[in-house]
């Protein structure tokens, strides 16, 4: 079986085809940015993209990935400089940081679909991702800041300044 992760094809060899993608990434490919939090698709810590769509890696069988292009937090940007990551940086969003790869991947997928999400859009997109430290208000603001930066690429770098 082969899967494509962050632009590279990986031959998986002898793995149980029913293995959740999460454990393939973590145990076989040594990509540990995608986190285990619940194993049941309830907390969002393992969120990644398959063909740009947010998916829960803990409940997604690896044999269902097929030719889908998997993007993990490690592959979201080359230098950690995706607009979402930059907004997270500027707002110093994380506390313990454990849920943040999942939060960032969900937010990045949201902003691909929706250039100017309002509070309800953010609630709907982000409520599958739990943050026990309680960084929700900073996540909400950072999403708005990232959306602003993405809509105004020339001003990007002038951090934040959301007028949403």
């Amino acid at each position: 079986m082969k899967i494509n992760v962050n632009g590279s094809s990986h031959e998986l060899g002898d793995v149980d085809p029913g293995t959740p993608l999460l454990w393939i990434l973590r145990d076989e490919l040594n990509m540990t940015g995608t986190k285990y939090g619940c194993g049941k698709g309830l907390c969002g810590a393992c969120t990644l993209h398959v063909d740009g769509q947010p998916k829960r890696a803990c409940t997604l069988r690896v044999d269902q990935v097929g030719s889908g292009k998997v993007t993990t937090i490690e592959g979201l940007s080359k230098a950690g400089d995706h607009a979402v990551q930059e907004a997270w940086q500027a707002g110093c969003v994380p506390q313990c940081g454990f849920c943040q790869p999942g939060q960032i991947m969900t937010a990045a997928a949201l902003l691909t679909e929706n250039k100017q999400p309002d509070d309800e859009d953010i609630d709907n997109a982000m409520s599958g991702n739990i943050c026990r430290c309680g960084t929700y208000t900073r996540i909400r603001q950072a999403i708005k800041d990232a959306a602003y930066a993405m809509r105004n690429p020339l001003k990007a770098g002038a951090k934040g300044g959301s007028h949403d």
Partner: protein
Amino acid sequence: MTSGTQAPQSVERRDFLKSMFASGALVIAAGVGADGLIQAQRANSSDQHQAENADAAGNGEAFRPNLWIAIHASGKIEIVAHRSEMGTGIRTSLPLVIADEMGADWADVTILQAIGDEDYGSQNTDGSRSVRRFFDIMRSAGATARILLCMVAARKWSAKVADCRTEDSFVIGPQAGQKLAFADLIEGAKVFDDLPASRITFKHPREWKYIGKETVRLYDLSDMLSGAGIYGADIKLDGMKTAVIWRTPTLRGEIESFDASEALKIPGVEKVIQLPSWHSLNPDAPAFLAWGGIAVIARNTWAALKGRDALKVKWKPGADESFSSHELMKEMTQTSQADGTLVRQDGDFAEAMKSATSSHEATYTVPFLAHASMEPPVAVARVSDGQCEVWAPTQNPQAAQQTLQQVLQIEDAEKIVVNVTLLGGGFGRKSKPDFIVEAALVSKMLGGTPVRVQWTREDDIRFDYYHTASAEHLKAGLDAKGKPQAWLQRSVFPAIGSTFSSMAVQGSGMELGLGFSDIPLDVPNIRCEVGKAKAPARIGWLRSVCHVFHAFAECSFTDELAHKAGRDPYEFLRELIGEPRIVDLSGVEKAFAYPNHGEPLEKFPVDTGRLRRALDTVAKQAGWGRALPKGRGLGIAVHRSFLSYVACCVEVEVERSGKVIIHRSDIVIDAGLVVNPDRVRAQIEGACVFGASLALYGDISMSNGSVDQGNFNDYQMTRMFDAPREVYATIIEAPDHPPAGVGEPGVPPYAPALCNAIFAATGKRVRELPLSKHDLSW
């Protein structure tokens, strides 16, 4: 150099540290820290760190003025973080104090995570005490390095040491152009091996560049955003296996037999072994021992999980078979209605009740709570040849080390190396090293194969050290104006001590000192009592511990009294706190001596002036008193904990259906001097969410001796859509007071402020948490 250089060289590191803690001043230990630094590197093993580490390890090029600092010829400055990073930012905040005091450029700083080693002093990262206990020590460490570097430069320039200063990793002399990089001074500095405490001088706070400023970003920020941060489960050793453990659902359950044949058929499953139960090792109490059970060891996590599912286990529940938390809550509620053991007495409650115009009483309950940090417990261990090395997200590496010594019967602590990774949340759960012990036991039983023990979320929820359940009964005798003249409060809860000894059947002075025996209200007759309660569960401590239920009861009751008196709750509470004064705690019984979070009362008195200022600040900020439509309400609460003063005001909407929407939360903290304002705000912002979770949903119940919940579907957390929507966090400027706690104090006042707001919105008083049990429709 003065005669100080002639100080004996043979003194042990720990003796230096002891004298340092005793005097608050630092004595220099020469050539120490290398082991710690080397080991520390393994936990955070980025390539860059490893390169630095090679330097630190072998050739002795670095200048190490003390345990915390190494300055390299390359200009790199290594600072040790000895406390655990679980989200408070402490891995940044303590090192920045060192950097500021020594005059280092933060850009030159690399942080090394310490292994567990008592030479660092306490590494037990809980109790909201990292900054308050180590601020002075960090300053001393930084100041020592600065002075030694200045001494070298001053000698070169024939200048006075006092006329030299440091900035951005340079020493700057009194004459124009006198400027030398730290790195160019380390050879000269290495000859010094002692600096008398009397020679240490500190920067004036107005010279600080990092302390109290917003100039330093979170050290681990970029790693956290790119997936590069190394948490417990991210450690991988050559040949490492993964184990998951089947545990008896009841605490004193026993495995009668098991059949692993199906499990062993699963590809990747390599071995199934039985671990000893804690009660086979110590029948009295579980303490930090591993639960015990059956470990399924596999090539990868998925095989281990499937193997565990395939086990066939015959077990019996043991003594806890009939235990029900519902029955316990009933019993505790009853206990709280009857006389208990006296904890504090001011005046005469019974006598004062006789002259009361009226009275009011209420009982409040809070159930067991689980920590549910986003990262479930996990640990990696390698145990062979009488040596043990573990990697774990632990809040308390020294407790892990000591417990491993005991369980593995390794006498020499230095043969047990505990590496600390980043923690995906802790909240007190990861102070307990039981999961680390499991990993070590499995590795040992495998003959030294490195192993990672991975807990599932269900394991985490079902085998926690729970925040204890409680019943609080309060009664007040009121004068004609409705102001209490007599005040009784009883606290009933299974004690933390029960985890360590079956003799502990009621709360200790430590637990009752958490917002109970120190009640700061201006009431002449106060009586505090404690009642007995026993529960067959591992009781632990969770963010803010007993403050959770003590504040919930006290701050709800004051609100009830205000409404009964027909008064504005804020104004009424303000009067109850009274004029600024230091609360007299001489009425606390000796058997329950008030611990004041381990600090002297002279340094950290219970100060109603600061309490009232916090209350006033939040009321003003939140616009207390503004008109709101029906179904909306404001609630307010204030509480001192961990030596800080936190007030909270919540604006809630309760829809006609009973759905609760938390529109706005204002929270203010007076934590004295603040090192890292952004992280302090982050902590109290997060505390609102943590408080909202426990108030709305927090409920661990037990039936037939086992826990009913298992994952986020039945043990819910607030999420983006139902968490406090807008949170305004403010730090009260109080730099003349010493630093106080930050991580926990935001939590206690939140639940009562929320419930008081719900009462204002609906007229419904919630005395039993969580809110999800109640019909709030109107």
